[in-house]
């Protein structure tokens, strides 16, 4: 079927200030979306529909059932399929004029520079701090603007970092959040939940910034952090400033950085590896405190005491530390709540408090 390009894009081409010139800029643009989840999918759909000529999509994950409430690009019968493959196929149907390159693996310091160097602008649609710092550093090295997005329960953040083109403010993620280790206690969606529609809004805001950047229209979220609060239906904007103490890393340092490690480095409490944990458990040296919420699975037979994390946070001043002559070790599903709980426990006792690094996920995967 022959189609008229002008007809497909007619409703945006007739916009005052847009026209065929802006459409041509979109057609020539190259955009990389890292993360094909709840932020990446809506961004990809709108940029494909708008006619961005070349897009790269990076993600090594497969579709999972618990993704679908916030990633409606994927259907129930696609659970188990590679996200980038499903997304690419659907986008080719949506707009065959767009060229999409899939990267069906996770981005890491050894492949990031090569992939991202092919593109004009990068969208951070990732769901974890290590990759957010990695993308910041890679984009800083390559001097590529980075459209940042992130969500937490009912709220989302958007900004454009590292924009030193066109008189940009060149604020980096590290200017705002300079210490990767300090992020260790912040929970992910997996742990704290997210309203499904929220990342849809944030991802489309990211796509909007990309279109503005490419076409040169409007005022970018450059040097401004926008936070959307869905429960209040409010946008809150903060003017960002450069941080003289923020770290800038070079290519060699970048390729040798273990981003997972730098985001988990800070702790006053003691982490136990799965091996250490199993050994001490076998030697009956541990008093295991489970801080998962009641009813969280799987059940494990080595728990001595259960106190949900939500209760620890609420009743911190009246927290009862179990009396035992064994070593208290706190566990949860992923090792984030247990780390926080261990910090709180540790502030109330002279006894050394341990926690299981990586949580039960690591325990059962070892």
């Amino acid at each position: 079927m022959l189609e008229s390009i002008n007809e497909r894009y007619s409703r945006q081409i007739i916009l005052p200030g847009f026209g065929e010139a802006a459409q041509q800029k979109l057609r020539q643009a190259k955009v990389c979306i890292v993360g094909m989840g709840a932020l990446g999918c809506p961004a990809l759909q709108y940029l494909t529909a708008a006619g961005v000529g070349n897009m790269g999509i990076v993600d090594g994950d497969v579709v999972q059932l618990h993704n679908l409430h916030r990633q409606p690009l994927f259907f129930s019968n696609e659970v188990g399929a590679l996200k980038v493959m499903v997304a690419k196929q659907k986008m080719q149907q949506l707009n065959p004029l767009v060229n999409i390159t899939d990267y069906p693996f996770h981005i890491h310091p050894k492949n990031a520079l090569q992939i991202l160097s092919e593109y004009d602008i990068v969208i951070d649609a990732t769901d974890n701090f290590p990759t957010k710092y990695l993308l910041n550093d890679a984009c800083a090295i390559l001097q590529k603007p980075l459209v940042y997005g992130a969500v937490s329960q009912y709220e989302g953040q958007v900004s454009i970092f590292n924009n030193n083109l066109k008189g940009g403010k060149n604020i980096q993620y590290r200017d705002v959040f300079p210490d990767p280790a300090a992020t260790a206690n912040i929970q992910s969606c997996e742990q704290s939940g997210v309203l499904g529609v929220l990342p849809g809004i944030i991802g489309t805001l990211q796509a909007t910034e990309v279109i503005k950047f490419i076409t040169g229209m409007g005022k970018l979220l450059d040097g401004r952090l926008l936070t959307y609060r869905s429960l209040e239906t409010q946008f809150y904007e903060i003017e960002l400033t450069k941080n003289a103490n923020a770290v800038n890393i070079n290519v060699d340092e970048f390729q040798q950085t273990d981003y997972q490690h730098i985001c988990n480095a800070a702790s006053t409490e003691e982490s136990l590896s799965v091996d250490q944990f199993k050994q001490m458990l076998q030697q009956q040296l541990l008093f295991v405190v489970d801080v998962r919420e009641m009813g969280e699975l799987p059940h494990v037979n080595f728990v001595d005491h259960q106190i949900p994390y939500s209760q620890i946070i609420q009743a911190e001043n009246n927290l009862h530390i179990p009396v035992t002559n064994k070593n208290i070790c706190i566990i949860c599903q992923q090792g984030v709540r247990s780390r926080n709980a261990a910090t709180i426990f540790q502030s109330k006792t002279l006894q050394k408090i341990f926690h299981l690094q990586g949580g039960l996920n690591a325990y059962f995967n070892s």
Partner: protein
Amino acid sequence: MQVLVFGSLTDIVAPLPNDIICDNTEQLIGLLEAKYPAIKTTTYFIAVNGKMIRENTPLQPTDTVALMPPFSGG
């Protein structure tokens, strides 16, 4: 003054304080840490009247102070 908290801090700083009076941001954080000790387990930056600050900043009763942690989800 009005205190706004976001992201992971909304669970920690609850209910939101509405009667805090203090001279500067350091004093404010001290008061909040005393009332909500779990604040110390997380990270955030501070903005006064919509502008990010890095140093102790004087506060007026009409000011709005936001405590903004990073979000990780996507």
